[in-house]
């Protein structure tokens, strides 16, 4: 009986200690993509700083943007992509970062230091970058895939996963039709809509999804799917039959940054968090968990030749050259969404 009392007391003491440590460090509200961080890195952060991380997840940029707009003060660190950062800056929804608190940001690769979406380099620290391409199962296709048109090929009926994300799916269709990914003309968008509806009605599309695709591809559920490069690298790690290609027509190259929304309640903790994520050993943990291309020179130094030669993770220059960044489409999102709804509701 007595020993049981002790156990309870000790448990209580530990809880109190943990709670007071958390109180001492305060908290930080992090809003990141689904499957986009190493859980161990988060734990290490809490251990080292005593700051409690309230971790929240989103699936697409557009979902995140709506939430941040509704109340930016709910979040301290967010992980938007390039064109959304551009958007947030233009809407005055981001805090300027205090670089004195983020010394590890100096590890960022040169070409990402003042990117087009944040020209003065005031508001964001790159977290990961990558491409959009096709992940395909070499056993289920008749020849290696090199073009977006394969996703409209009738022989792959019920065998193609498209991405349930407005910009990406409309973007790759624009590319296939020979437009820029940033084309906004109504004729081009109408052509995209017709092409996507044609693809859906022909029964080629198996599903529109985002985070599920990598696991379904590992399981051999479909011949190909549109994915982000990190998901591709992750899936190839589990199934050797899979291969990734950035089609010859070109595609999207993107950077996800870490930003602090306007009026964030714990800006200092946010900067501590961002700095921690840029520390090479932590950035390496994240890299090895999610396999997106790291913008951190410190991590690249730690990697071996074989990893650096992996073209899925580190795209070669000719791939980068045929890719383009998304630009912010501002209020045209309504028109894009109409196209998207027409596709999604088509039967």
């Amino acid at each position, binding site marked *: 009986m007595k020993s049981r009392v002790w156990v309870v007391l000790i448990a209580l003491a530990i809880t109190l200690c943990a709670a007071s440590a958390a109180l001492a460090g305060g908290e930080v509200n992090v809003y990141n993509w689904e499957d986009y961080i190493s859980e161990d890195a988060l734990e290490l952060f809490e251990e080292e700083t005593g700051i409690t991380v309230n971790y929240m997840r989103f699936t697409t940029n*557009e979902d995140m943007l*709506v939430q941040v707009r509704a109340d930016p003060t709910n979040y301290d660190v967010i992980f938007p992509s390039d064109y959304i950062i551009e958007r947030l800056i233009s809407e005055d929804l981001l805090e300027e970062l205090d670089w004195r608190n983020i010394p590890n940001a100096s590890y960022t690769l040169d070409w990402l230091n003042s990117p087009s979406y944040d020209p003065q380099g005031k508001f964001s620290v790159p977290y990961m970058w990558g491409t959009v391409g096709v992940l395909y199962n070499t056993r289920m296709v008749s020849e290696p895939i090199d073009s977006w048109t394969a996703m409209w090929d009738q022989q792959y009926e019920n065998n193609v996963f498209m991405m349930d994300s*407005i910009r990406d799916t409309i973007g790759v269709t624009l590319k296939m039709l020979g437009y820029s990914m940033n084309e906004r003309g109504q004729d081009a968008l109408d052509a995209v809509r017709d092409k996507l509806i044609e693809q*859906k009605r022909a029964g080629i599309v198996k599903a529109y*999804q985002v985070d599920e695709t990598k696991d379904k591809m590992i399981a051999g*559920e479909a011949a190909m799917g549109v994915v982000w490069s990190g998901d591709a690298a992750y899936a190839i790690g589990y199934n050797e039959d899979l291969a990734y290609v950035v089609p010859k027509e070109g595609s999207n190259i993107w950077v996800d940054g870490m930003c602090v929304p306007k009026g964030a309640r714990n800006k200092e903790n946010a900067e501590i968090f961002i700095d921690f994520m840029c520390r090479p050993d932590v950035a390496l943990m994240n890299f090895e968990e999610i396999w997106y291309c790291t913008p951190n020179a410190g991590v690249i130094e730690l990697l071996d030749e074989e990893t650096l030669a992996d073209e899925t993770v580190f795209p070669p220059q000719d791939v980068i050259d045929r890719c383009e960044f998304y630009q912010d489409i501002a209020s045209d999102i309504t028109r894009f969404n109409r196209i998207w709804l027409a596709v999604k*509701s088509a039967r």
Partner: protein
Amino acid sequence: MKRSSFAAPYGLWMLVFTIVPIFIIVYYAFTINGAVTLDNFRMFLEPEFVGILTFSLWLAFLCTLLCLLFGYPCALFLAGRDMRRATLFVVLFVIPMWMNFLLRTYAWMTLLEDTGLINRFLEWIGIGRKRLMYTENAVLFGLVYNFLPFMIFPIYSVLVRSDRNLEEAAQDLGANAWLVFLRVTLPLSLPGVVSGVSMVFMPAVTTFVVPRLLGGGSFMMFGDLIENQFLTTGDWNFGSALSLIMMGLIFISLGILHRFNPDAESNGAVW
């Protein structure tokens, strides 16, 4: 202290979480950037939006019909058992409901997919893979699976409470089993059917996520559309208009159901 003051906390709750939000929705639905307009409703008349609504209504109708077809015999069966065993069956029906329906839907995904358990079994016995997931039928199946208990239990509870002597009296007066069912059991169970139908049809029309998971994002229902307006486009005005239209439809279907309910006058409610 007056008795009615006990209801005050609930009244406050209703005010803050039901009445006020409805007014907010109405405000958003009839304005764009603060200016009063009907444009949100006009936009709904575009073919893709009307199409999504009719598709949802059709699917919810099929779902309700199937739930009734499967649920009624099931409720009859449960109500017909002797007390002890009936409890066991009822518990067996309730157990799956202890788990969140999303988790159950995810479980179905791993069963139904091309490389899933069911297809592996079909392959093993030589039938070969069937396309089970990402189809309209998969969505319908998911809806029926999730809402079936909401049909069974209202009918069951009415059947269990109904007076058995009436059935016996009908038999004594020479009615065969069919006639007893048609003229006595069925009419007596109508209030249960009506509340079952309303408890299945209405949530089925507004379902979201389930169609996305089992239909692979290819079958958009009205609930998904409302979600899309709030979460992806951020158009709260149009989203609110859609929600109001949804509410209107629910009230209309409640009204229609109300007419079918023989008990309506005595208890004044459908459930």
